[in-house]
């Protein structure tokens, strides 16, 4: 069990402070795999809540608290003439205490697979009721911290945990470096671009691409963790920049449980923020001073952008076919996985054959990762809204396979040809689940992972083979 204090400063009288990302960071930092976080407010005018971080809704909550316990409504607690031992700076805050009574001062959050278990719309808030003040919460993390063991997955496989103690420590050190570098970079940018990006970065994400950069940067003779972290953070910024534009194109309202930049701040801001971090990431990579790395990432970015155009064009022929799917996915997702692997290896001055093998590993892994992502769209336990890909007419391999199925295919194709309301999306989801499409996609993803691992067989990996194997398997055997 680990005990900590979470300290923060509030800036308003009533304020919903979203502490989700800080809690996620604690989980990551401590290596808690399965267990619980216990939270306790250490103040009588700070409450805790789990709800949606939607600015207008937060205003509704504030209005509700004001209606239920209005400020200045003649609280006996505020009648200092009748109280004893009053501090000189005793605030008039009867309303705040009453409001705290309506909330809770305690919360237990579940942790699975090294992350908080939260629904898509859920965020964890410390609710300031008498600010602004310096505040703190008591936090205890309890459960299974080790990495040995196994877990079940929606693909039905067992994910072997093969990290040694040293590797586990190294992973956390790598993650800390990347998070530090991301924080540092976002701190120095102008607010209009930095704040939306900070919200997106702090909301989480798997950080798989930076992880691949850092791992492969340990393969060649030139191993410099700080340079690798700088490259890894730049790749993550680049990835997030593409997501910001994607969300505008897909008309997505939420990502990682938060409103998208386009939804929260408008399309114009989303375009500008995406462009800024596209440029900044390419600059940061250029400043590293390795021309091969710069070219590798630039080629990947070009492939991503070309595939986005194909992806949108193919929505006219929804659900598409296997060949078109692979073409889009190899550009849209796998290209940056491949570039992450290759660029890390290039940075470490690994041998050309190792760079090429890792690039192919990344390409296959990225494709398998996307297939697993497609499957999650049909999983009710993922925490994400089921059927989002169907609703947005995004290419999805389970849907392609189900549409080819003799039994359910005709009905699926008929439904997809029409307007997709809740009932239609629900029916298509049920039909896909009733077919063997998800099994086929799972098999295909696993066989791609096997192919990815074969790429590593002939390469000297300086002891990183088990980690790369574990990472590949966990990238497809996942629940979110």
């Amino acid at each position: 069990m680990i005990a900590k204090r979470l300290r923060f400063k509030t800036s308003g009288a009533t304020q919903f402070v979203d502490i989700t990302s800080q809690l996620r960071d604690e989980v990551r930092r401590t290596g808690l795999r399965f267990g619980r976080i216990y939270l306790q407010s250490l103040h009588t005018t700070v409450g805790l809540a789990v709800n949606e971080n939607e600015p207008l809704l937060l205003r509704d909550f504030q209005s509700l608290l004001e209606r239920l316990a209005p400020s200045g409504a003649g609280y006996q607690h505020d009648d200092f003439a009748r109280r004893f031992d009053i501090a000189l700076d005793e605030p008039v805050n009867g309303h705040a205490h009453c409001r705290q009574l309506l909330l809770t001062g305690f919360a237990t959050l579940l942790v699975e697979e090294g992350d908080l278990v939260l629904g898509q719309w859920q965020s964890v808030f410390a609710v300031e009721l008498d600010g602004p003040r310096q505040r703190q919460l008591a936090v205890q993390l309890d459960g299974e911290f080790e990495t040995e063991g196994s877990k079940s997955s929606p693909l039905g496989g067992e994910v072997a945990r093969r990290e040694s103690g040293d590797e586990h420590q190294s992973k956390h050190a790598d993650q800390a470096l990347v998070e530090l570098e991301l924080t540092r970079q976002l701190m120095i940018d102008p607010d209009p671009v930095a704040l939306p990006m900070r919200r997106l970065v702090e909301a989480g994400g798997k950080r798989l691409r930076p992880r691949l950069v850092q791992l492969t940067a340990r393969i060649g003779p030139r191993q410099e963790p700080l340079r690798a972290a700088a490259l890894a953070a730049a790749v993550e910024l680049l990835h997030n920049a593409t997501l910001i534009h994607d969300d505008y194109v897909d008309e997505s309202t939420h990502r990682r449980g938060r409103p998208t930049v386009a939804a929260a701040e408008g399309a114009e801001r989303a375009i500008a923020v995406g462009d800024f971090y596209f440029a900044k990431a390419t600059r940061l990579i250029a400043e590293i001073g390795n021309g091969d790395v710069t070219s590798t990432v630039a080629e990947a970015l070009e492939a991503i952008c070309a595939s986005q155009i194909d992806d949108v064009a193919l929505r006219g022929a929804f659900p598409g076919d296997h060949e078109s799917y692979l073409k889009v996915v190899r550009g849209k997702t796998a290209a940056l996985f491949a570039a992450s692997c290759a660029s890390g290896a290039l940075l470490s001055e690994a041998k050309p054959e190792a760079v090429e093998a890792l690039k192919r590993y990344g390409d296959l892994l990225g494709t398998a990762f996307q297939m697993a992502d497609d499957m999650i769209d049909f999983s009710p336990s993922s925490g994400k809204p089921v059927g989002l890909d169907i609703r947005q007419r995004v290419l999805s391999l389970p849907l392609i396979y189900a549409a080819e199925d003799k039994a359910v295919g005709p009905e699926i194709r008929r439904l997809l040809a029409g307007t997709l309301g809740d009932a239609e999306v629900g029916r298509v989801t049920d039909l896909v689940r009733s077919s063997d499409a998800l099994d086929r996609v799972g098999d295909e993803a696993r066989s791609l992972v096997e192919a990815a691992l074969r790429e590593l067989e002939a390469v000297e990996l300086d002891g990183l083979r088990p980690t790369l194997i574990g990472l590949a398997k966990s990238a497809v055997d996942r629940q979110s």
Partner: protein
Amino acid sequence: MRAQAPVIGRELERLDGLWEDGLSDTYRSYLDAVVSYEEEAQPKLALAAALIEAGLRLQGLGGRAAPAAALLMGDLCLARASRLIADTASQSLQVAFARAIEELSATAASGGTGKPVRELLVGALESGR
């Protein structure tokens, strides 16, 4: 169709119609700014600058947001330019180009009016020598 340097044709794949739709004029407007670079690099650098200008225009940066298809085409222009610069330009020029886009997009995000795109990109070409 206006004449292209052979290298230009190869770099216009998937950007159909842009050359005729003003990219050629934009490209020519940058040729003076690249004369001090190696001869082989000149068309690529001028094209990179022209693609950035065209890409930002397609996206509607600093103005009304472009529809999805135009935004994606703009993104591809920027990515193509980025790859051309990575393959052709010195580190200092790569950084100068990136900083120009950072300045333009930060200004757009804040709702302000900054220097014109061309002025910034020509400045980048001059400072990156």
